């Protein structure tokens, strides 16, 4: 695997439509234990990126990731905005430094992104946030890459990690983000941010698998 800007552009378009088709779940989750805007926040970001693919096309992958970060920062707002922006900033930083020419490069970039997101949000796994999906996915990605698994297997591993991570948020008590105010009452619902991450990660994996065949 290597990361090309045109893949980033196709991913942007795919993600936009994937978010739209998961509107009911994402929206309902943030209504249940948040404030109901997560879907529209993520969609606003996804649309903005999908609309800038022309601009992105001529950039290097790390430049594109950085541009995406800045766009997300100024369009998404809420908690999701700075977090996703940090994710892309971190990815851009590592990609610029290491390149993005191997699977491991890409995995490292993703891990760097998650690192940056954690720094911004001061969170950790187990707090019922998107980190419950992102952190296991980052680990899985790195390990699978190190083990030199096939793209198909890596994608399968990642999807499983994302699904499990998402499901793990159900019984957690939120201690970070808006749902933290709820205490015990946050139990029994999936986290909206974890859900949107799982949706996006799934889409990207499917896109990789498709372009791989």
């Amino acid at each position, binding site marked *: 695997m290597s990361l090309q800007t045109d893949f980033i552009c196709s991913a942007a378009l795919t993600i936009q439509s994937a978010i739209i088709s998961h509107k009911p779940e994402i929206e309902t989750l943030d209504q249940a234990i948040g*404030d109901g805007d997560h879907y529209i926040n993520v969609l*606003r970001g996804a649309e903005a990126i999908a609309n800038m693919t022309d601009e992105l096309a001529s950039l290097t992958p790390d430049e594109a990731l950085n541009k995406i970060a800045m766009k997300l920062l100024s369009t998404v*707002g809420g908690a999701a*905005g*700075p977090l996703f922006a940090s994710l892309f900033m971190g990815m851009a930083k590592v990609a610029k430094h290491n390149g993005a020419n191997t699977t491991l490069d890409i995995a490292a970039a993703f891990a760097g992104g998650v690192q940056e997101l954690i720094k*911004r949000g001061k969170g950790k796994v187990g707090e019922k946030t998107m980190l419950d999906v992102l952190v296991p996915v980052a680990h899985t990605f790195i390990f699978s890459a190190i083990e030199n698994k096939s793209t198909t297997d890596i994608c399968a591993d990642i999807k499983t990690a994302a699904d499990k991570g998402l499901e793990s948020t159900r019984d957690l008590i939120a201690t*970070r983000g808006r749902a933290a105010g709820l205490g015990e009452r946050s139990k029994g619902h999936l986290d909206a941010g974890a859900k949107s991450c799982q949706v996006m990660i799934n889409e990207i994996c499917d896109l990789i698998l498709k372009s791989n065949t």
Partner: protein
Amino acid sequence: MKKFVNDVNNMLTESLSGFAKAHNDLVSLHLEPNYLTRKNKAKNKVVIVSGGGAGHEPLHAGFIGKGMLDAACPGQVFTSPTPDQMIAAAEAVHADKGVLFIVKNYAGDVMNFEMAAEMLPFENATVLTSDDCAVINSTFTDGRRGVAGTVIVEKCVGSIAETGADLQTCKALGDKINAQTASIGVALTSCTVPAAGKPTFEISETEIEMGIGIHGEPGRKRETMREADAMVNGMIDAIIADLQPKKDTEILLLVNGLGATPLMELYLIYNTAEKLLTEHGLTIARSLVGNYTTAIDMTGASITVCVLDDEIKQHWDSPVNTAGLRWGV
């Protein structure tokens, strides 16, 4: 959802434009990035910049003007504004003595303002408001939510800034007020985020949500609907338990409507709250009743108590000239 709206996507801009036109003696509106500034740019003072998701009107844009805010950054409905807005707003109003951000304590607001603060080329500081005592045992790392007490912080910090106080002095007053202010809200109905088009939560005719957040975040407890006095009693108890004010303390009592509650009922709540607080040995030295920190169209109210001292009283009483609060001018 029945609302006065054309296209949900343009609702915020259309509303901001209306606000700016209706108050063109007080504010100027800048779009993309969205922010509003005081009409007459202040000179040589700490500038006070606030912001947050839309849907809490008059907070914050309604508090722009002499004696209160220099600028406000409205986000989308219930969504924190973004750092580019805050930076542009701060740059537009900066008056050589630094920028004080007033930020309600929500992960999104905190992070966006944080990133703006990091990128801002001026000296700056932040007052985080966290007056919501609804969550009793707050071991949660994100801390308490900022709600209607923010209005008191903005009023007083805005006042001290007009005196030429420096950045740290302004911040210190804001932090002090926040520390001695407690609020709690109750919802009788849910709010409806226009983009979602349906109520955030279901609640029956016989239920209330005690400790509701101003974004419709579920509160402390789903309780049975009961008479006003019983609800107010529970709210006052929570506030007293939190603030533990000494006897004979002077306080400011704010009864705030969440959007769809008639004034008649807010004054009824005030009547009971005043009685209960007086029974607790407190003196209501200042008061405010009305819609100041709303949750779109929620039926409900919050009660805020701020423990006063001479400094806070002085800055509460000083002249203010904004769309939402006006006296002494």
